[in-house]
């Protein structure tokens, strides 16, 4: 709770500093706010009376909050160069990211459907604005409109599902819904409500068959905000998805688990097979995020997902590599967004090459990167429940290796792209690259801190 207050206040301050045209100060404020929020979350002060606390964080929840804050911090740092180019809007961008993160934290800690809905909307609304922030570019406006309409539609579905669920259980509390659903098998209204909620969740996290908005929106949005959508929003969204279904509909596991498993299997193939033929980098990342979102969602299939570190490690590896790759994309590409313009960048700039190799190997799940440990833990947890899905996932890992390895070969090529321009890496981007390299190579050691 205190973390949200810290984030919100620093967001407000950033907005005001934006008015007085102080772009550098807004950055400093938002970085301080983010670090402060992470500290307050990890070492709570408990100054608020308990009855104000509608949010609950267990150890895993805390871990996810810190992870979301960490990823946002990396994104804010890597986007500074672009923020500073538009001085008058730097404050807005920083502030909106922080506000959105507030929603994300509520979405991790919710205990009833009110807070859940609030969190979801606070997370999404700033993003509709940010997706369209390149006002001169038509793709950006397209992305914003698409994202808004799709998001609004998903919200409608969600509300309808919530209403039906309330009708069947007479409660908004997750724990009460759970106790009612365990006993009331055969209540058709409950099942319909659950299906609606499921559909809206699939929309939000971009899993087949509701994945089609992902590539367009990701490609149209500015790279920084795409980084936020594909890392933080995915992390938070999937955690909320799993929490919702385990804590409210845990009694109906047999009903939804097979359905979700099949959808996960389909998404993995759709994401990967489409990514095979992409020539635009952001589109490739969008399809790869569909696949990785599907991997992460596998955690919903085993009962102890909310009480162990499996999903956290997977998300750490995935989120960091997305941020690292998009930072590299920001350094290399302006608007063309062609994969071909990455050619030889890693050979000329060893730091970029090293980070790119680490990030791509991590997403492919090759040891000793963090992504490997995430996949290993995830796959071995789900193996006892859905072995066929793990076989599918491994096949997809192999396809994924093909995709990412080609990217490595492009980035590390000795030849360079034809129209080579000078590559400038700003200080904040260097910090992001070094930090993400550390997280990718040694992030899994943080597991030693888990009890």
């Amino acid at each position: 709770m205190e973390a949200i207050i810290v984030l919100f206040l620093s967001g407000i301050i950033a907005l005001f500093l934006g008015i007085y045209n102080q772009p550098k100060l807004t950055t400093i404020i938002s970085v301080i706010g983010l670090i402060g929020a992470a500290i307050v979350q990890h070492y709570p002060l408990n100054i608020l009376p308990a009855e104000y606390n509608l949010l609950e964080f267990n150890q895993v929840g805390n871990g996810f909050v810190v992870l979301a804050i960490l990823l946002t911090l990396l994104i804010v740092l890597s986007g500074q160069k672009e923020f500073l180019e538009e001085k008058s809007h730097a404050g807005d961008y920083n502030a909106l990211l922080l506000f959105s993160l507030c929603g994300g934290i509520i979405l991790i800690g919710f205990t009833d459907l009110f807070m859940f809905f609030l969190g979801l909307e606070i997370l999404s609304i700033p993003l509709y604005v940010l997706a369209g922030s390149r006002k001169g570019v038509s793709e950006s406006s397209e992305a914003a409109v698409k994202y808004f309409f799709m998001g609004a539609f998903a919200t409608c579905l969600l509300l309808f599902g919530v209403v039906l669920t309330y009708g069947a259980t007479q409660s908004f509390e997750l724990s009460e819904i759970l106790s009612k659903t365990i006993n009331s098998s055969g209540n058709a209204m409950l099942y319909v409500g659950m299906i609606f909620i499921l559909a809206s969740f699939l929309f939000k996290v971009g899993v087949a068959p509701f994945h089609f908005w992902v590539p367009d929106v990701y490609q149209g949005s500015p790279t920084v905000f795409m980084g936020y959508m594909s890392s933080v929003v995915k992390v938070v969204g999937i955690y909320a998805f799993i929490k919702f279904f385990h804590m409210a509909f845990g009694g109906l596991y047999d009903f939804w688990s097979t359905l979700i498993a099949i959808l996960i299997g389909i998404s993995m193939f759709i994401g990967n097979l489409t990514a095979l033929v992409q020539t635009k980098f952001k589109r490739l990342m969008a399809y790869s995020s569909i696949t990785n979102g599907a991997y992460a969602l596998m955690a919903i299939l085993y009962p102890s997902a909310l009480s162990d570190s499996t999903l956290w490690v997977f998300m750490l590896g995935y989120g960091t590599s997305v941020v690292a790759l998009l930072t590299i994309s920001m350094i290399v590409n302006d608007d063309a967004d062609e994969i071909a313009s990455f050619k030889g960048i890693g050979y000329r700039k060893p730091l970029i090459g090293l980070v790119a190799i680490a990030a791509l190997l991590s997403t492919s799940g090759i040891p000793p990167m963090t992504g490997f440990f995430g996949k290993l833990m995830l796959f071995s947890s789900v193996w006892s429940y859905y072995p066929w899905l793990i076989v599918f996932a491994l096949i997809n890992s192999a396809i994924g290796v093909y995709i990412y390895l080609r990217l490595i070969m492009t980035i590390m090529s000795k030849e360079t792209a034809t129209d080579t321009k000078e590559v400038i890496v700003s200080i904040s981007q260097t910090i992001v690259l070094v930090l993400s390299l550390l997280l990718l190579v040694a992030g899994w050691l943080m597991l030693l801190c888990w009890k």
Partner: protein
Amino acid sequence: MELLIITVVLGLISFFVPRNSIKLFGLAGSFVSAAIAIIHLINFETGSYVSIFETTEMPFGLTFQIGYDGLGLMMIALTNLIVPIIILSNYNNSATSENRVFHALVFFMQFGLLGVFTAADGILFYIFWEFTLIPVFLILYWFGKGTNKVLLKFFIYTLIGSLGMLLSFIALGLKANSFAYSDLLAVHLPAKEACWIISGFLLAFAIKIPLFPFHTWQPDTYTSAPMSGTMLLSALMLKMALFGMIKWMIPLVPEGVAEIKWLVIILSVIGIIYAAIICIKQQDIKRLFAYASISHLGLIAAGIMVFTKDALVGVSIQIVNHSLIAIGLFLVADILESRLKTRELSHMQGTATLAPKFGFWFAIIAFASVSVPFSAGFIGEFTLLKELTEFHFAVGLLSATTLVFGAVYTLRAYQLSMFGAPKNETFEDLRWNEILVFILLTNAIVGIGLFPQCIADLVGPSLDKLIIIFNETTTH
């Protein structure tokens, strides 16, 4: 612990060594690691297990345990002694030997290999196994002539195999609630499950060795790789798979061996004969040696599946012998290729007249490759053929054709490249480092050929343990 750390340290230092002294640094560094391996060899008490590092304080059932027994020590010593020979034979290829990144990658590769041979935990083994792929891939990519297609084929092929192994480890580890080697050994499986699990392992090892239908990545990769890359692949990386079969696959899933035994043996025999026939018609000398490698390894793989003491001792000798011969043969191929700018046998006629020293040493390596008496190959192949014949007469008979075919293709390659009227005007004779490599190799081959007991004694006790585990489960 210094055994593993030294390679990482050497690899990291390589990035910062001045460019003009990197050659010397690489050579000296690799000799230091070889010296450490020799110290371990001297201090080793036969039949004991030496634990290098051990902790169970790790997440998700991974235990960090590394250590070696006799078999592991043989592989460690092989790795650490072969790497200096590879760097030495590469000493004059300025494209690679004067490159800092190249040396760093070789040392990282060595680290991965040592990890594979010392890991006493399934996941740790897998991590090191996959880790070796990264440096070797980068060596092939930056310093080789391979097209992206060839490299992707190599990487994806081996990776798919590894994923099969990962799946098997996960399935096995969930049964044992731990991935530690000793815990995995204790798991008993019903036959059907064992069959699935062993297939996963087999996929990984069959692709890496490579066995007959999985071999298609190998000739292309070997031909396009730089010489040092080919040597790393054939002399060391393949041995990971053979080692994995002996130490991991068969003892962990002895219940499944009966089902796949014949499959592997038949595939191996097909590989022996098929690759040998291709060799006989082969015009490209590097490709010829690549196929010869498939043929030789088929015999070793068949020997492993018999899993008796004598067979495994023969396998161990052949593992060492094949590494030495592979280095010799690929060095020969590289000398011919770099000086004549061609790999076609028909363009090489009469080299022996121009370069008599080269002709002499090539002859020695060629004879070692066809396993004449007094060479290590003679002892190894003889033991393996004896065991295969005892196992089944037809298998022994068909495998024995490797001796005949081997002589035919090796001597044919020698004759076509060395004898006849010289086609070329000049051919620079051997340089000092190449002569040194040949002398070292020949000493080792003849040394083992005359005194094979040194290897048999080293690995004997650990093989006995594995055989006891195997027999206990299969007779139940």
